[in-house]
């Protein structure tokens, strides 16, 4: 029995290793991102030479100047790949992590407040590759146009920018992003999903190639890594995730 989280981690790992994309030598993972963290560990435990900087690791944290060091590294171009999500994501890969309605916080009439932008308004510009990840695939998340842009998917010519979204992985499918035309295309469908079903669950338009394959299952070897050594690495930072997905608890 393959859990959705395991499938998503393996899908993200394949995108990290995409030979068509610039190499990911140093990957950073931000707050509350257990599935992207599992994907990075999968790449590393498969023997690929990659440096992983997990911002929320409590013991042995990679930074000696906290998140400031993460942003300084990224400012210099030393972080090759980062993960972002959003309360809303639109068809131009704009991200909204702040909230819906009027500028959230500006008035009590604002819609739903999300936690906030974190470092997205910087990281999305300064990282050569961003993989977008949002498990919930629904018209309320994947919208025609975000209510508020926390971080734009594409920028005006002349604005300094190293990269943007490479792909968007959801609980239903994988999209690729094409910054030249600011549109997503469907790359693969998770088991049980159809193109029509994805259309119905997606608020934005996207391109559909003639043949859309199924997202491959994680291999037995990948599952063994995820459930064993990768769970070991993640127990301290993500105890609830590890308990839920891998049925493992931190020893008291």
């Amino acid at each position, binding site marked *: 029995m393959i859990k959705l989280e395991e499938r998503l981690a393996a899908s993200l790992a394949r995108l990290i290793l995409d030979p068509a994309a610039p190499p990911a030598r140093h990957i950073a993972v931000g707050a*509350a991102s257990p599935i992207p963290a599992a994907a990075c560990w999968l790449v590393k435990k498969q023997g690929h030479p990659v440096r992983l900087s997990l911002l929320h690791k409590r013991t042995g944290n990679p930074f000696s100047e906290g998140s400031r060091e993460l942003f300084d590294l990224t400012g210099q171009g030393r972080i090759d790949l980062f993960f972002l999500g959003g309360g809303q994501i639109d068809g131009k890969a704009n991200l909204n992590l702040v909230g819906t309605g009027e500028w959230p916080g500006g008035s009590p009439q604002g819609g739903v407040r999300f936690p906030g932008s974190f470092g997205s308004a*910087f990281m999305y510009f300064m990282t050569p590759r961003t993989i977008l990840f949002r498990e919930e695939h629904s018209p309320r998340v994947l919208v025609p146009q975000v209510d508020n842009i926390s971080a734009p998917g594409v920028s005006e010519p002349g604005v300094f920018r190293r990269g943007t979204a490479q792909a968007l992985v959801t609980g239903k499918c994988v999209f690729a992003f094409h910054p030249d035309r600011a549109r997503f295309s469907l790359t693969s469908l998770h088991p049980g999903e159809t193109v029509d079903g994805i259309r119905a669950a997606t608020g934005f338009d996207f391109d559909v190639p003639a043949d859309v394959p199924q997202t491959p299952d994680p291999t037995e070897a990948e599952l063994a890594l995820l459930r064993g050594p990768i769970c070991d690495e993640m127990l301290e930072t993500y105890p609830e995730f590890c308990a839920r997905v891998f049925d493992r608890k931190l020893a008291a």
Partner: protein
Amino acid sequence: MIPHTPDSLAASVPDGALVALPPDNSLPSVALARALVRRGAKDLRLLGVPVSGFATDLLIGAGCVAEVQTSAVSLGEAGFAPRFTAALKAGQITVRDATCPAIHSMLQAAEKGIPFMPLRGIIGSDILRNRPDWKVVPNPLGDGVSDPIVLLPALSPDVALIHGVMADEAGNVWVGRRRECATLAHASQRVLATVERLVKGDMLEDERLAPGVISGTYIEKVAVAERGAWPVALLDEYAFDAAHVAEYARLAKTEAGFAEYLDRYVFNARAQAAE
């Protein structure tokens, strides 16, 4: 001399102060946040450095806060911050959204005593559109017309609240690898610190400890508060108390539940004695 306590430190924080708190993974003094709730502080303007967590939600729920400047407010794996969300909806607080490296950069400008710091990114974000105090100029060291870049004003908090592992006789506070707390201390007008324990001597005389020290130059007062970061983690001293924060998140969904939480963990005699 009467030793300081979290409550005596909290008494010195005036209503309306701009109060900086590190996030849950970077040594906030939750003991001082609890003491501010007990003192009934009002109209505080909180700064998340660069994001906000448990202590911020607690202070908002207790009615101590008028404004929050931050890059996000969350309880981590326990989800959205319930009192922040409720107060915003009720129009009781305003939030000034920033983005993480912008807050670090504004503090670095204050640390250097310069009026602003440039930062890449942000252009095209509605965060910028809602920050009239942030300016976009053409890179002045380029051709003077192209390459737009954001300038951020220096930001100097009135008070920073930090929980370190130990303080010494020279007034230094040890924060280990969490040296971003030193930038916060350098940039702030005042630093009030709680620590797990006091140690003899001067940690700046010890080559191994010195890199993790915030010099006493910047520290106004220190009080001992064992487990003063609880329920959040403190380096390798103790872990994040996920069960407690989940309990908080459950209770704080309603005002009555939040009041019950305060009674049990902030106002009761045993909670105070522990600090």
